[in-house]
């Protein structure tokens, strides 16, 4: 095991910067001293074998781990220079800035319109109904779903296909105009065609958002991300430009994983 992360941990003008982060589930040490910068307008993918802590680290970035009673986070994570674990930080406003897309598409069992409108409504982003409709439309357009659903906005979001549901969840996330979007294996339940659509979407969203994606597919990491981070047993082994990590990994473990020797 490496004592130190190899590759480029730091970037200029990071949007997210994590320093010496440790996460414990009760007695279990799930994340061991991870430091990592994530730049703005950048897609970074987290790869690694199951149980390596990549999802746990992702969930630290919008404090979703708060919902787990026994979870304890140490260290410092700054987004735009402010420590998100500061007691003065309101977790609600943090999650409005750091959106999340989950492994399993989880639309609310409400209409497509209400799914998108929910976030803007609770955060008071729209001052009128027209404005709200505008937000819903642009969010669906950006998620590439508008053409498919514009005639049935009042139908239930759970009636869409799996791929459409996942894009609906992405649209729901971008409707609250976040800065960072966290995606936790967003394509693991999708077929190749739906996966291609989501990847295309990630490609388009990278201009405006910082995207962090956890994936089990190395091809996907190679296709969508600018940087790749390899996690192993709670440690960040290596991080670097995607091309470099996949063509010329610095660490033996990374090499073994991407060549399929384990994982």
């Amino acid at each position: 095991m490496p004592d130190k992360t190899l590759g480029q941990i730091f970037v200029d003008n990071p949007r997210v910067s994590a320093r010496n982060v440790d996460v414990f589930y009760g007695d279990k040490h799930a994340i061991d001293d991870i430091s990592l910068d994530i730049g703005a307008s950048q897609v970074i993918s987290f790869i690694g074998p199951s149980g390596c802590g990549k999802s746990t680290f992702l969930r630290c970035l919008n404090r979703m781990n708060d919902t787990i009673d026994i979870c304890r986070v140490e260290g410092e994570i700054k987004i735009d220079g402010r420590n998100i674990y500061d007691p003065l930080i309101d977790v609600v406003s943090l999650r409005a800035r750091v959106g999340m897309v989950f492994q399993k598409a989880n639309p609310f069992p409400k209409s497509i319109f209400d799914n998108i409108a929910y976030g803007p409504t609770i955060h008071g982003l729209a001052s009128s109904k027209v404005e709200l409709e505008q937000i819903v439309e642009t969010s669906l357009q950006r998620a590439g779903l508008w053409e498919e659903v514009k005639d049935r906005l009042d139908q239930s979001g759970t009636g869409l296909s799996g791929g459409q549901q996942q894009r609906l969840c992405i649209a729901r996330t971008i409707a609250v105009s976040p800065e960072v979007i966290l995606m936790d294996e967003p394509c693991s339940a999708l077929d190749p065609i739906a996966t291609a659509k989501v990847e295309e979407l990630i490609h388009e969203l990278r201009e405006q958002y910082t995207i962090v994606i956890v994936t089990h597919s190395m091809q996907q990491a190679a296709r969508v991300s600018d940087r790749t981070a390899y996690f192993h047993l709670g440690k960040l082994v290596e991080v670097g430009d995607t091309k470099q990590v996949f063509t010329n990994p610095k660490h033996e473990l990374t090499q073994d994983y991407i060549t399929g020797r384990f994982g």
Partner: protein
Amino acid sequence: MTDQSTKNLSPRQASERVALTIKARKRKESQFLFIGQSAVAVAIGFLILLFAGILSKGIPGFFQHYVTLEVQLDAAKLDPTGQMTIESLSQGDFDGAVRDSLYLALGNPEGRKAKRDARKLISSGSSQRLMTYVLNHPQQMGSTVAMKFAVDDDVDSFLRGFISRETSEADRRISDLQISYIDILDAQNRLSYEISDYLFFGSASRDAEMAGIFGALIGSLFTLLVCIILAFPLGVGTAVYLEEMAPKNRLTEIIEININNLAAVPSVVYGIMGLAIFIIVFGMPRSIPLVGGIVLALMTLPTIIISSRAAIRAVPPSIRDAALGVGASKIQTIVHHVLPLAMPGILTGTIIGMAQALGETAPLLMIGMVAFIVDVPTGVTDPGTVLPVQIFMWADFAERMFVQKTSAAIIILLTFLVSMNGVAIFLRKKLERRW
């Protein structure tokens, strides 16, 4: 036997051995199927028997015998002060008016005994009935109206054939003279067998022919109203707190275990507690629906909490993640997403709890809702009784007619219970479809 034959059977040998076991396996399966099906058949048989029993006894209870009499409404007798108010009418001699019309129909019997026997033919509530009629129809004052009066419960039993003419006079509850009067009335086509208005609109009464469930029904409604107002918000709130908010520690564990145990506490214990705390310590009056409702609320709370918690737990965690992920606060997540999804289960549990409360007798006996109360309660602080307690009291009375009225009241109670369960099923189906 060689090693090879035991370790690796040839496919043919294997299928032969399988064939041997198949018969036994199939037999076991059909045995179990037979046991299950006969259990269902026995259950259905008993259900049919039960319903046939209740209906055959209870349906006659919805009817009773009436006698039609022409009553002369003489203003001077009935309304001596001429104001047509309850106060002035209550000084009028309605008893006499009814009596006179009865004597007229019977051909003016002579002598005190004959008159007394004649009087006892009709319900003692007849004068009250006439007074109510006059109050509602003041323009009829001065004319002669044909009115139906309930016959006395013994006469009713005689007309139903429960009292036989052949029994010697000393052993039956009506005299030979009365039987001859009944024959006279019957010959004049004055007797009729009709749906009992006393059953539905009457209140508690010692006279079986006048006894009705109306007061008890209103008492039940008030009691359930208090019960649901207290139990529903408290129960759902408790379930939400325990399921979504409370830290998982020793204390909440103890609370959970105790709530589950409370669901199994005999209901009469809640009654004793109600008596000890609300009536003795807090000094609240006895027999009132308010105390009854509080006691029943305490009794149904565990049911509501347990079913609500199960419903909340059944909401997929991904929905909570989704709401938290877009920045909803915990309360917003619960109110906007978790509770609407859990509502069918919560409502089902609540209605089942209410149905349980509607059928409860024992705790209400303890707080005095078993009192004999003629007036229909007009609020939660008026003394009253409830349907099951009314049934309990009627079942205790000796008069023959109460047997039928008891069965009829049981049918009414069952109707309420079945329709409440029906509402529960309907709500669950409807709300589930919406989501």
